[in-house]
């Protein structure tokens, strides 16, 4: 109870006023201003983070889009290369085939020419043999034949034959 006697109404009222005064001053200078500032800063940081996240997401989307496009382009280019290779093979096959046919045609023609030339030569040889035979026979008939003349005649005939070949 001695302790309670220390209580003085004046001091208590003055302390209450002092506390309320401090609260009013701090409400003006600290609580309203600084708490609002802290809230604003918190909101701003949150919105900045949100913006960064949105930008990151958008960049990620763009990158995946570009990756997809790049993959498509690569696939397309691979397909075009394969197509070009196939086309090239086809063209080379055609060229080879056409060259083969042409060569075959040239060979056939050459073969035909050779055959014609051979036939012509044979014909000419045959004609010559006939002519020689007729000529020789004519000479034999005109001259009296001796053994020596026969030999010479045969030899001339053979020479003529050699020339013809």
């Amino acid at each position, binding site marked *: 109870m001695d*302790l*309670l006697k*220390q*209580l*003085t109404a*004046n*001091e*208590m*009222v*003055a*302390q*209450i006023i*002092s*506390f*309320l*005064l*401090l*609260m009013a*001053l*701090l*409400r003006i*200078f*600290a*609580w309203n*201003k*600084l*708490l609002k*500032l*802290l809230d*604003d*800063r918190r909101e*701003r940081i949150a919105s900045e983070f949100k913006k960064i996240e949105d930008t990151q997401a958008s960049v990620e989307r763009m990158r995946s889009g570009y990756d997809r496009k790049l993959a498509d382009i690569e696939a397309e280019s691979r397909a075009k290369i394969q197509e070009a290779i196939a086309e090239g093979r086809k063209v080379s096959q055609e060229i080879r085939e056409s060259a083969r046919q042409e060569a075959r045609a040239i060979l056939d023609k050459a073969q035909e020419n050779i055959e014609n030339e051979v036939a012509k030569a044979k014909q000419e040889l045959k004609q010559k043999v006939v002519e020689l035979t007729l000529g020789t026979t004519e000479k034999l008939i005109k001259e009296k034949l001796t053994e020596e003349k026969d030999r010479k005649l045969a030899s001339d005939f053979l020479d003529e034959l050699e020339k013809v070949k």
Partner: protein
Amino acid sequence: MIETNSAQPELKNFVGILAEKLEGTPFAHLLHIYENIIYSLIIVAIISLLAYFASRKSSMIPGRLQLFMEMVVGGLDDFVCGILGPAGKRFTPFIGTLFLYILFMNLFGLIPFLKSSTSSLSTTAALAICVFLYIQYTAIKENGFLGYIDHLMGNPRGIIAFTVFIPVLLLFIHIISELVKPLSLALRLRSNIWAEDMLLAVSAQMGIGGVPLLLFNMLLVILSGIMQAVVFSLLSTVYFALVLPHHEKA
């Protein structure tokens, strides 16, 4: 530096010294009566100036003082909202001011020729009365007068004994407990700070040899001063939490 005229040793402070010098004049009498008020007003001025200079050119990129005050204000706001939930933000100015005021008053006694106002029961009782009145006002505002009485009557209600006897008994007990709360707040704070002052005064009486003990006691007094400010604010916040409608708590 130590007064030993009274039964308890007390460190001298400049208002006391001034009152002694002017002994016999009306001004000395006033100084003696309002000694604690003078220190409280000095603290009001210091805290207000700190807040003023911190928030004078407040910007999104804070200076050192603004940063420090933001830490204090933000920390106290988190402390209050951590107990009362987001709805407790409106109590931050009251509880925050209470904490800063008590903390400064507690630690003021450590500075030579100054005194802790909280070593006076009138100071702590005044603060406890503020807490008590604000809690009762909040309780009636939030629950309505009848709702608050109903809240004090407790639960459950039902058959005869529970309908009349126990609720009335609980109402009586709760009213006493509500009245005891400010008393316990005031006595706890005053007694701790008064004991700290005694401890420092006794240590100082030991002379040069007592300096290590004085330094150690000063460390204890700093810790205890901070702790008592936290305890007073924490209990006040909890008392608010008890009278708020339950859906408002986090």
